[in-house]
């Protein structure tokens, strides 16, 4: 949709140097300034909210990517005791399996970040947008994710030490994927909520009639 007006094209809609300020009484001018300032701040809220929908749109694929990466990482932890005890009786050093799994996980994470950034049109960044990091709800979700993040690796190490059954590998990988996928879903939910939140009150469009 092309909504650019001639004023906007010249970039001098409100206080531009070639456009005089509002005339009238000081009170009326001050009211005009406030209206302009509110309008400007509201436009920032609207744009931020509009672009936040790209996070919302890519949420399912992001969650799937994260689940895959963490599932593979949990499998890597399960593999550590197997490699240490050389349970598969491999002719070569079994630590290579661990390194290979780790490398694939990192590669998958890089591919996921690149594809997500490409889909969103926003470059990869390590920290979420500033309003999000300042949000209490997001920080709580992040802290919870950090805490539960340790459960799948510990569980995988213990299970991997106890058994080398294939289903145990599958179970811990699925557990790691589910825990982190769910936590990522909540993180993205908190992020989108924060980015869509208005920072200024909506302007009252109703004209005061002064009757009653």
């Amino acid at each position: 949709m092309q909504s650019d007006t001639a004023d906007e094209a010249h970039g001098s809609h409100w206080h531009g140097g070639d456009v005089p300020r509002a005339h009238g009484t000081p009170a009326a001018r001050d009211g005009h300034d406030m209206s302009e300032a509110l309008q400007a701040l509201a436009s920032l809220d609207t744009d931020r909210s509009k672009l936040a929908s790209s996070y919302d749109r890519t949420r399912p694929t992001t969650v799937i990517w994260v689940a895959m990466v963490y599932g593979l990482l949990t499998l890597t932890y399960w593999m550590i005791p197997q490699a240490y005890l050389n349970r598969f009786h491999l002719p070569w050093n079994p630590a290579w399996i661990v390194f290979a799994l780790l490398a694939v996980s990192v590669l998958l994470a890089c591919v996921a970040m690149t594809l997500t950034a490409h889909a969103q049109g926003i470059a990869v960044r390590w920290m979420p947008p500033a309003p999000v990091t300042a949000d209490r709800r997001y920080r709580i979700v992040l802290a919870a994710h950090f805490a539960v993040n340790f459960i799948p690796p510990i569980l995988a190490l213990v299970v991997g030490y106890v058994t080398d059954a294939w289903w145990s590998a599958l179970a811990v990988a699925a557990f790691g994927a589910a825990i982190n996928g769910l936590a990522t879903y909540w993180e993205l939910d908190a992020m989108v909520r924060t980015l869509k939140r208005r920072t200024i009150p909506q302007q009252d469009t109703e004209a005061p009639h002064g009757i009653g």
Partner: protein
Amino acid sequence: MASDSPEPVFNEVIHAPVRLRICGLLDTYGTVRFDVLRDTLGVSDATCSKHLKTLADHDYIRLDKKAGDGGKAYKVTWVRLTSEGKAAFQSHVAALRQIVAGQAAG
């Protein structure tokens, strides 16, 4: 580096609607692709380019042209705020908030 509580300074260059909105998006989302910026603002290629050029001339933004997908001939432009632009934008927003708060208090 932009501080947490910037000094309110009204900036005529940034205050133009499209430029203010460009700076707002870049301040929040970091580096954004040109087409995403244009579509979010709902303006034409020419209008978006013109305002980006004005901001770039004042060293408020930086334009990076990178090769398209699969090494195609066209270049994709990525836009980001410079530290100077970030500071100017945050000071301008502080000035806008001051105007609103001043009026509300009055």
